[in-house]
């Protein structure tokens, strides 16, 4: 996305590129599923379920796909830190929203 000035694009394609492409596409599929759930599920609890679970896995796959391309281990460490931060923030916020919804007496959807 961001073309750093002075960096030339690599032209040859390595096997690791296929691996990271596969991981990134798999991650995008999980994000798509999570977003579909967010839009189509009937109440706040099921929507949270779809959003946090699917997006956490999707981001993990994306981080793995980018880590394959990383230039050094410190970049891998930063990517893992980002994933860990999103995991812990997502889990906590999902809990806070769900408990807030319970306190306000929003009933769970029954089919």
């Amino acid at each position, binding site marked *: *996305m*961001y*073309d750093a*000035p002075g960096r030339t694009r690599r032209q040859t394609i390595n096997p690791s590129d296929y691996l990271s492409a596969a991981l990134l596409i798999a991650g995008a599929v999980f994000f798509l599923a999570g977003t579909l759930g967010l839009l189509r599920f009937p109440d706040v609890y099921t929507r949270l379920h779809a959003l946090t679970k699917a997006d956490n896995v999707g981001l993990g796959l994306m981080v793995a796909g980018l880590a394959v391309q990383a230039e050094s281990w410190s970049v891998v460490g930063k990517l893992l*830190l980002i994933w860990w*931060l999103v995991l*812990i*923030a997502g889990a*906590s916020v999902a*809990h*806070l929203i769900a*408990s807030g919804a319970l306190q*306000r*007496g*929003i009933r769970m959807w029954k089919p």
Partner: protein
Amino acid sequence: MTLLTWVFDSLLGLSLLWLAWRALACPDLFKAIVLFVAFGLLMALAWVRLAAPDVALAEAAIGAGLTGALLMAALAKLHPTEAHDDFTVPPEKNVTKVWSWQWLPAVAILLVTTGLGYVVLSLPPYAAGLSTEVAANLAISGASNPVTAVLLNFRGYDTLLEIVVLLLALLGVWSLNSASLDRKAAPGIVLDTLARLLTPIFILVAAYLLWVGAHAPGGAFQAGAVLGAAGVLLLLAGWRPRAGLMALPLRLVLVTGPATFVIVAVLTLLMKGQMLEYPPTQAGVLILILETAATVSIGVTLAALFLGGDPRKNNRNKNQT
């Protein structure tokens, strides 16, 4: 520009316009704020597309994060009793419109925007701006990230005034309102644990952004915003600083940034005859000192803005009664 990036840019631009429109038109204010935060995050993506990663960091932390938190806190104070089942306030309270004949401002703004668009499109497709001047003087600026060099060296004057604006805004908020320092009801173990776990990491990230700003995207404002976010999280988790810290210590921390800037400005004025013109050999050290002081002040000021009032006033009243 390839077809794929063109499609992506167009989609991003249309999403930005759509989100802005929904945030400004939807009747529910809570939804409007959520849409505005989403708008800020997409703005950060647009800054990356425009090759402005420094701006993207600032937008994501300040434009989307802290502004969203401020708006949410204000909405909660505005309608404290009207929290409904579905997190909304009655829509009829929010859709009062001034103009019953909206076509008049619409036509006027359409004309103005057409003019603006025409002016933008008639600009030359290539313009170097000040990029050659910045590149020529980067070596003596004390920073290899051009944005940091502009912020702290070439246009240090702007940054000095900006930090003063931040302090003035806080003084305005303090003279209007007082804030309670009573510890809030226990917000639950999850939020408490989250705040305890994340605060050290926030401080570490802020230090990293401050350090890396000399040669890569980052710097005092992004680092200060992360520190401010840590403060907001602690305040949300019910933490309140001790009343003794609110008097002199808080004020000293708040003026550290502006005071360091003013001292450096006066020293350079006396030594070089030009405000904030650093000697090239010491420029790197001076920038680091200024940025560190500014980061601490910006972080604490942003957290104090979120608290939304003078924490001492309330105390004083309590002592009198």
